[in-house]
């Protein structure tokens, strides 16, 4: 017998549940088992990650320290040794706790073999053409005369803006110049305040000059005051 139910009629109550294939119906799993599965898996994963983190941390920190030491050596023209001073409460000091060492802004003071100060190295970061450009800058605090700079991190346009890092004729002209600097274009720089920008990387070159000017403006008085106090 077939009967066509009118559309408006309520559907007949199903007499028996629709049979589902055995393979599709998964057995009911208790919430506790789900919790236990995820808990155990999470704990095992956490242990593994912590173990590898602890195993690799010394190597990763050693690379970072090596890189930093290499940069200091380069921008201070190979000092015999250097001290690290930290900016705490508006003045530079050597005496800080181990925790503060990781967070406070700091400068490196270079000395030659006879113990005479050769200059200070600082890091500074400001926007370039695309993203932040991170520089390490070496200069003589008393005169503001640059010793050199090194690009630690940049994401400028490959082939154009990244010449601030790769073009040695751009980087080398900063040694001996005195901040504040101006960038000149299309002619040889005249005087000790001018440097020539890179063709095709004018904005990135100007960003480098701006970062150096701002950093020296900010750090010079602090470093001079620190030296006047006799390095306390």
């Amino acid at each position, binding site marked *: 017998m077939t009967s066509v139910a009118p559309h408006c009629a309520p559907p007949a109550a199903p007499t028996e549940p629709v049979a589902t294939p055995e*393979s*599709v119906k*998964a057995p009911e*799993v208790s919430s506790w*088992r*789900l919790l236990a*599965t*995820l808990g155990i*898996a*999470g704990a095992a*994963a956490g242990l*593994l*990650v912590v173990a*590898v*983190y602890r195993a*690799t941390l010394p*190597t*990763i920190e050693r*690379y970072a320290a090596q*890189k930093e030491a290499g940069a200091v050596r380069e921008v201070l023209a190979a000092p015999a040794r250097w001290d690290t001073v930290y900016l705490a409460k508006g003045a530079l000091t050597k005496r800080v706790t181990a925790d503060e060492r990781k967070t406070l802004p700091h400068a490196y003071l270079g000395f030659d073999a006879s113990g005479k100060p050769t200059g200070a190295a600082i890091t500074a970061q400001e926007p370039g053409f695309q993203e932040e450009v991170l520089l390490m800058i070496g200069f003589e605090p008393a005169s503001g005369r640059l010793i050199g700079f090194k690009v630690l*991190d940049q994401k400028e*346009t*490959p*082939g*154009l803006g990244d010449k601030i890092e790769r073009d040695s004729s751009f980087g080398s002209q900063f040694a001996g110049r005195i901040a504040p600097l101006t960038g000149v274009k299309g002619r040889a720089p005249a005087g000790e305040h001018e440097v020539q920008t890179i063709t095709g990387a004018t904005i990135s070159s100007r960003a480098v000059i701006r970062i150096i000017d701002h950093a020296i403006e900010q750090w010079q008085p602090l470093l001079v005051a620190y030296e006047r106090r006799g390095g306390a």
Partner: protein
Amino acid sequence: MSTTVAPPRTAPVYEPPAPPATPAPDFIPGSPPPAPLWADTWRGISKENPVLVQMLGMCPTMAVTNVMANGIAMGLATTFVLVGSGLFVSLFRKYIAHEVRITSYILIIATFVTLADLLLAASFPEISKALGPFIPLIVANCLLLGRAEAFAAKVGPVRALADGLGMGLGFTLSLSAMSAIRELLGRGSLLGFDVMGPHWEPWVFMVLPPGGFFTLGLLLMTVAWVAELRRRRREAVA
């Protein structure tokens, strides 16, 4: 008059199809058909290549293939995660409840991604820095979750390993090819060694993002063209 009796006209006997062979006790619906191990591996490199055929993992494919070292490193890191997560997903497939399987797969994948990130930072700091956030982002690569759900969760650990290795190699080869083309034309070098000589004017365009789209388009076109040629040859033979 013929005495032969015509055979009675009977309807063809309906033979019910043979009942399906009893599934193995651990049969899982949708599990891949059995295949030799070399086929499991070869599939990811050739006709189910993650980048050139399945179009998975396009984000790292575009982002890190500007120089060859980055492309290879990204491919190998992804292979490590594919093999590791495939193995563990397969080993624990009977203990992971259906309701929490995606969470569990992501947990396993994320663990291997973190390991890959730490090991890369400890062994190749320069490459690790160049790849930046794209190593942690392997977690979000559809390729990983796709292989865990579609393959590793339904086969034994050996087949899962073979598949992870094949998919990883396919990914690495695609990224290597892309980054080789882009580095050669965009910088005139391969793996950092000058190849094109000092008079080569680099096509800066190729190491910029548009060059990535352009190169991928060319590679996809080549793959589609070769597939079409082979299809025609098969039809001509048949």
